Structure formats: structure tokens, C-alpha cells
């Protein structure tokens, strides 16, 4: 479609117009870190952020999400959240993660709770301006992204290139439809940004191509690294919590005070938590920390790739930052498997 070029003032004006007409969530500062949150003023939008504490998955699969309402006499009724919204400032690696979860929730048995919400969203992605301390998206091929979003923003010097890619994007960019198109020089500079980001977003260096990971894991099941690392694991699930591609959930019921009506909701769950594979009767099919630790790596590097054809680690580095025991660096683990597999 088209790429518009806006100066800072025009860009802010456009963001303000979006806020007036739609429900907008955007990246903002929270003390010395960043979060996705409801956006009230264009001035609060921080597209220069490095990484957000939680990934934007919380808008498609909320941490606590009502699935059904019930009345004990009348039974269950579906609850869908169909309110349109705009998500402003999604980094490429997070965009790739969203596209992966799109596939996982829609393939085979389509999860309409997720899909309905996702289809109502307009995603404004943005190229990374500042690398976070643990990002390794450059090694995972996710430092830049070419699809899934409705609009892509790239900052070139003091200007913003607004790349409009879909009908939803066009609708959101209605107020800037008469802005000037990006010139060739700007578009060339954008290519440089992409090339630079692929290099810069490698704070940890993976010594293997990501597409080799399924095969690498295929011969590493008994590798000592799983036990070694997991000996310090607190089973806290922080790595699951902050991961943009973790989507496992628990389903629970909640009753109102009258014990008559209530709701069934799902909450984020994590395979590192000790109780994750417990069945009724208390037998735990993954009682061992090392087994849980390994399972997560295998999901990201082997099992999910077998389902969707892509490695389910996008190199955001959030798990590295979040892990209190300092054992969650995927690059360290994978490099160890490569070195010792030789």
C-alpha cells in the first residue's frame, strides 16, 4: 500500500486523532521501564522504548479472561470481547510472537475467544530504536518483521515513516491520507535501519541458525544442561509469565455471593510451575524440575515448531531479565548444546 512520512508534530497529531476516535493501548514509561497501557496522550507514547515488561499478548489473551457465564439452573453462555482497539508500538519480535499465537489458537479447534479479540485489533508495529540489554532478536530473524501488522512505523532522523499495510491500517490512517509519501531516500534509510537492527539486536550471540534448533534439540534430550541449570530453578514461572509465545492456561470457576451465578475464566499458567502436570489424585507427571525446565525449551525449539513451522522463541530476552536465578538465557543453553554436541 503506501508509506507516509510525518514530522514529529504531525505524527503526534495523528496519534492524538487515533486516541480520540478509538480505544488505544500504547507503550509508556513505568518508572525506569516500559509497559503497554491505555494511552491518554500522544506525548506519553514512547516509541523509543527498549522492551516492555510484559509482552502485548495480554491484550489478546488477558491474564484473566472470562470465557463463559453460568447460572446454576440455566447453564452456560459464551462471553466474547468484541470491542475494537488499537495497539500502538509493537516491536517486530513481539509481532512475530503474535502471529505465531494467531496460528496456534486458530488452527484445528478455533478458539473464538482469542480470534474474535485479535480480529478486532489494529496493530501498529514499530521498528526498534533502542536495544534492550538482553535482546537477541537479531539471532532469531525477528529484529524486523514483514507481516501481521496493519501499520509499521520507522523513525528516520526526526521523521516517522508510516507504512500502511491493510484496510484496518488505512482506516486508522484516514486523517493522514493527504500527508506526503515517503521519498526514496527515506525508504533507503529505512532499509539501513532494518539492516542495523538485525546486527544491533544481538546482545547475546546464538552460535547456530534458529531453524537448526529442532534438530539440535532432537539429539539433546539427555544433555546434562537441563539438570545443571534447573538445579537453581525456583519453579516460579517468571519465564512463562513474560514470554510472548507462552500461552498455556488454567480454567477455573468463580461463583457470586448468591452461589447461583458465576463465571468460568481462564488464567495464564506456566509449565515451570510445580503443579502444572498434576492430575486428579495428585499424581504429578512432571514432578522433576529438570523435566519441567527441559519441557519449556522443547516447546519453544521443537514441539511448537512442529505444529507451525517456526521456532517459538523470538529473542525478546524478557526471560533472561525476569529470571531471578539467572538460568533462563536460551542463548546460553542452545550454545552449550551446540558446543558439546560437536
Amino acid at each position: 500500500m503506501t508509506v507516509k512520512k510525518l514530522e514529529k508534530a504531525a505524527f503526534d497529531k495523528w496519534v492524538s486523532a487515533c486516541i480520540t476516535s478509538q480505544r488505544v493501548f500504547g507503550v509508556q514509561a513505568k518508572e525506569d521501564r516500559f509497559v503497554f497501557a491505555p494511552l491518554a496522550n500522544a506525548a506519553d507514547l514512547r516509541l523509543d522504548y527498549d522492551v516492555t515488561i510484559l509482552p502485548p499478548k495480554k491484550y489478546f489473551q488477558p491474564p484473566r479472561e472470562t470465557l463463559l457465564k453460568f447460572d446454576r439452573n440455566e447453564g452456560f453462555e459464551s462471553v466474547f470481547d468484541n470491542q475494537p482497539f488499537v495497539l500502538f508500538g509493537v516491536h517486530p519480535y513481539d509481532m512475530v510472537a503474535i502471529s505465531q499465537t494467531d496460528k496456534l489458537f486458530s488452527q484445528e479447534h478455533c478458539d473464538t475467544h482469542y480470534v474474535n479479540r485479535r480480529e478486532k485489533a489494529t496493530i501498529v508495529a514499530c521498528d526498534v530504536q533502542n536495544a534492550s540489554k538482553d535482546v537477541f532478536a537479531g539471532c532469531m530473524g525477528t529484529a524486523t518483521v514483514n507481516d501481521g501488522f496493519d501499520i509499521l512505523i520507522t523513525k528516520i532522523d526526526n521523521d516517522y515513516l508510516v507504512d500502511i499495510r491493510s484496510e484496518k491500517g488505512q482506516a486508522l490512517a484516514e486523517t493522514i491520507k493527504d500527508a506526503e509519501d515517503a521519498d526514496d531516500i527515506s525508504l533507503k534509510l529505512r532499509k539501513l535501519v532494518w539492516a542495523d537492527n538485525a546486527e544491533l539486536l544481538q546482545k547475546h550471540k546464538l552460535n547456530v541458525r534458529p531453524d537448526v534448533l529442532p534438530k539440535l534439540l532432537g539429539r539433546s534430550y539427555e544433555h546434562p544442561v537441563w539438570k545443571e541449570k534447573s538445579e537453581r530453578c525456583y519453579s516460579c514461572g517468571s519465564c512463562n509469565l513474560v514470554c510472548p509465545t507462552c500461552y498455556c492456561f488454567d480454567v477455573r470457576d468463580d461463583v457470586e455471593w448468591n452461589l447461583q451465578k458465576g463465571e468460568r475464566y481462564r488464567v495464564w499458567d506456566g509449565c515451570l510451575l510445580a503443579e502444572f502436570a498434576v492430575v486428579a489424585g495428585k499424581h504429578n507427571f512432571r514432578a522433576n524440575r529438570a523435566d519441567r525446565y527441559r519441557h519449556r525449551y522443547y516447546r519453544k525449539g521443537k514441539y511448537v515448531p512442529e505444529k507451525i513451522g517456526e521456532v517459538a522463541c523470538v529473542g525478546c530476552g524478557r526471560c533472561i531479565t525476569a529470571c531471578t536465578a539467572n538460568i533462563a538465557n536460551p542463548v546460553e543453553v542452545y550454545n552449550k548444546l551446540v558446543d558439546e554436541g560437536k
Partner: protein
Amino acid sequence: MCKCDSNKDIYLPLPATLGKVQPMTNLESFFSCQLDSGKELGHMPGQFVEVSIPGIGEAPISVSSSPTRKGSFEMVIRKVGNVSQSLHGLNAGDKIFIRGPFGTSFPVDDAMKGKDIIFVCGGIGIVPVRSAIQYVLDNRDDYGRVIILFGAKTPSDRLFVEELEKWREDKNVTLLETVDHRDESWSGPEGVITTLLPLVKIDKDNTVVVICGPPIMYKFVIINLLEAKLKEDQIYLSLERNMKCGVGKCGHCQINNIYVCQDGPVFKFSDIKDIEEAL
């Protein structure tokens, strides 16, 4: 993203009404159930349903009756969790809610046809297998010999006591039973279920074995069967995990790369023998 109806909900349970409710042992009760829509459940032997009680939750439960027996379907539920405890407090006429059926089934219409069938059931493992046993008995001419091996912890843990007697008297069925720990009421064999296997003359080229029981049982039964020269693709097992969503999303029932709720609960042994977390 997806062309399906946006109002379709894979998590929406449908109303059903309990028919007969009857305690079977200290822990297990029998429930018959009919969908309020009047439709058949439409399951095959070995599949499971998600049973809901509003306000309590949902739990995966094996269907214990054969689809050849029309009208209602049957379940036997051990009280071990929140949902099963609550189910035990319900009576005939009470409402429950059902999703499913889910998962794979015993190959009653394929690999089992024309073959001698050995059912190996440990304890509550007889519950899903009973569906296949009934199916086979209702189509008796389609199969060779039918041999049922059943092991319970103690005589008072035996399930389907009346049906066991019917099978014992049926000339077309061989039923062998054992208990781990005998008491005065039991004059039959004592010992684990593998002690029954040497009593069966296995036609190694013409037999399919169906196994369901506690996790520890599988390894020992399978070792015995392989020693009797059965091939790995002649052995089918039903595995238990926490099949929470039933539709391959929530992640709880995963065994390495497979989802028990979708790829199982019935597996051919040759398909899972190299899957590390399976057995």
C-alpha cells in the same frame, strides 16, 4: 485469520441430565447420562468427555459405555478432585454439562476386527475399556476370541461386579481376574495382573491387546507381551493426563510433543514407545 463462525465456542458445555446414579465401591460411582438435546453423544470406545458442574469446574471423564447401546451414555467416576467429589453428591434427574467427545478411540472397526482381543484392565482402567468390551460383544461375530484380564487392589475395589459375572458366564468370553490383596470374600487368584498373562494362550500373529490401568502397570504388561512375541503395533493403550481444555490449547496434557486430548488418550504402543514422557 480463520473462517469459522465467530459465535462458535469450543469451551461451551451442553446441558445433560443424570439418569441412574449408583455407588460401586467406596470411591467410585456409576452415572448414566443423556444430553438434553436428545442427540446421541456420538462417541467411539476410548474417547472422553469434559464434565462440568457450574461453580465447581470441569474434569475429563472417560465414557464407559459403548455407542452400540443407544440413548444414554455411562461414566464411572472416582472421587478424587473437586468436580468428581461434587458429582458424587448428585442424584438422578440432576443436571450436569458436557463437552465432547474428545480424543482417539480403540480401533474397534479397524485393527481389532477379525482378531483375538485381549483386554488388560487394572483397577479403574476397566472404565474406558468397558466401552470397547461392550462394542466388541455387541458385534461378537466380527472378532476372534475375547479375553478379559482384570486386576483390582482388593475384592471390594472390583468394578462392574454384575457385568463381570455375565462375562464369566458368557461362553464367547474368557474372563480372568486377580486381586493384589485377597480377603475372606475372595477365593480367586491373588497377585498383580501380569500373573494372569501366562494363563492366556496368545496367537501372536492374530491378536490385538488393549491396556488401561495405573501408570506403573503398562511397562510390566508390555514387557510380558513383547516376550510373548507380540509386535509393538498390536498393543493399544489408553493414557491419563490432565486434559483440561480437551482441544489441544491449554498445554496441561502434553506428553513431549503430543497432546493426550487430541492425539490420545488411546495410543498404539509403536507410536509412543520412543516418546520419553509417555510411559
